[in-house]
């Protein structure tokens, strides 16, 4: 009976979608007519039950692969075990999405009633005026936890939607066209979804790299929306535009990239995992690496941070952007963030050029500038030079 209802809903939504609306289930399971994103891709997948069953099968196979990887650490291992046990109870892609958004806390999703969403909209439109029209056409996954959704400018939004939209708009602004993307630490695929729904710059290749438990949620969410365009890397490339890559198979992934993206996750990895990914980046076929992660946090308040310095690209990467002054991030998180873009070209920066050596006070941005210059030429003498001004504050 449930599958018949869903089939009917899909048929109705197919027609409603032509006029910009859809039926969406809210938390009380009542279907409501809501505005629909303009760029939704029609589903081509099988039933919702098949999506979940396939995702569970992929999870099981990936976890059976023997590979040598850094330890998760005491913080993550019990959490991953817990998620795996909960996944066994999930039967529906929307249930998976809500579990990812509400229980796993892949993101800091707020109740729409307490989020200044119209303010977020204005802030992004002012930071990226060239993309104001595009922003107005982008929208949140309508199946998201209903309490986090509201309508601004005739489309569904959430606080997380704006967070991800900013990441995308920043990449487009600085890097330009990003037709081949690999994202590390993808959660349930929310950022990937925004990229893939872009009206003119949708990537032709998008690889999502994560632990199998996270990819379960990404597979459920993305296959529900993009159907058979989503494939699973099980040791060989499925050849689909969207590929879910369990971390155990990362070393055999062999796709060209315009950019590798990591946001909000390397900050929570151990230093061993940072070393692992930095080494992979050095060998990956990618021109750019985009990062938005905690940086410069007080040692006395590390919160979810595990690495003490990460990401930390090798000197094979030049710095093209360092930005720790992002209004939207500051409104949504009390923690200091660094947005950085690196290009694979030998680094040539020197601490001799550090603003602190020209008399500037060591603010967060000046500190991060010095840290990045040290990264580019990591020698003991420079490490002493870098540490000196910080010891007197």
């Amino acid at each position, binding site marked *: 009976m449930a599958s018949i209802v869903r089939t009917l809903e899909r048929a109705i939504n197919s027609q409603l979608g032509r006029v910009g609306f859809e039926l969406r289930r809210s938390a009380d399971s009542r279907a409501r007519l809501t505005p629909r994103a303009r760029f939704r891709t029609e589903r081509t997948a099988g039933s919702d039950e098949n999506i979940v069953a396939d995702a569970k099968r992929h999870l099981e196979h990936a976890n059976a692969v023997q590979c040598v990887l850094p330890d998760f650490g005491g913080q993550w291992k019990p959490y991953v075990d817990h998620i795996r046990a909960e996944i066994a109870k999930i039967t529906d892609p929307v249930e998976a999405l809500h579990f990812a958004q509400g229980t796993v806390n892949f993101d800091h999703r707020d109740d729409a009633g307490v989020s200044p969403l119209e303010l977020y909209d204005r802030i992004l439109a002012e930071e990226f005026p060239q993309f104001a029209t595009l922003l107005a056409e982008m929208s949140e996954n309508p199946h998201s936890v209903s309490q986090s959704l509201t309508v601004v400018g005739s489309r569904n939004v959430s606080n997380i939607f704006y967070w991800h939209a900013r990441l995308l708009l920043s990449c487009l602004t600085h890097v330009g066209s990003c037709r081949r993307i690999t994202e590390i630490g993808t959660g349930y695929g929310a950022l990937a979804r925004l990229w893939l729904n872009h009206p003119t710059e949708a990537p032709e290749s998008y690889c999502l790299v994560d632990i199998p438990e996270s990819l379960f949620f990404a597979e459920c969410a993305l296959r529900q929306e993009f159907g058979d365009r989503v494939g699973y890397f099980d040791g060989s490339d499925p050849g689909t535009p969207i590929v879910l890559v369990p971390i155990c198979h990362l070393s055999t992934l062999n796709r060209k990239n315009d950019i590798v993206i990591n946001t909000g996750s390397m900050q929570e990895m151990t*230093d061993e995992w940072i070393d692992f990914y930095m080494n992979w980046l050095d060998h990956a076929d990618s021109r750019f690496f985009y990062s938005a992660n905690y*940086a*410069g*946090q*007080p*040692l*006395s*308040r*590390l919160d979810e*941070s595990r690495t*003490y*310095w990460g990401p930390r690209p090798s000197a094979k990467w030049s710095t093209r952007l360092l930005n720790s002054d992002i209004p939207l991030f500051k409104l949504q998180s009390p923690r200091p963030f660094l947005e950085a873009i690196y290009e694979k070209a030998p680094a040539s920066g020197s601490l001799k050029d550090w603003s602190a050596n020209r008399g500037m006070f*060591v*603010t*967060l941005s000046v*500190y991060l500038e010095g*840290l990045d210059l*040290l990264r580019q030429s*990591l020698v*003991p*003498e420079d*490490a*002493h030079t*870098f*540490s000196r001004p*910080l*010891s007197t*504050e």
Partner: protein
Amino acid sequence: MSYLPKELYWVVNWLDTTGNPLDAAYRDRVRSAVELTR
């Protein structure tokens, strides 16, 4: 800065491995800040 940022802990430990450590008082200050949260 008004606080010791986390990357300093990495730098302190790395310098130890190179045989060119920071002075002991500085190292103790950084490490004791971490011990408050770990």
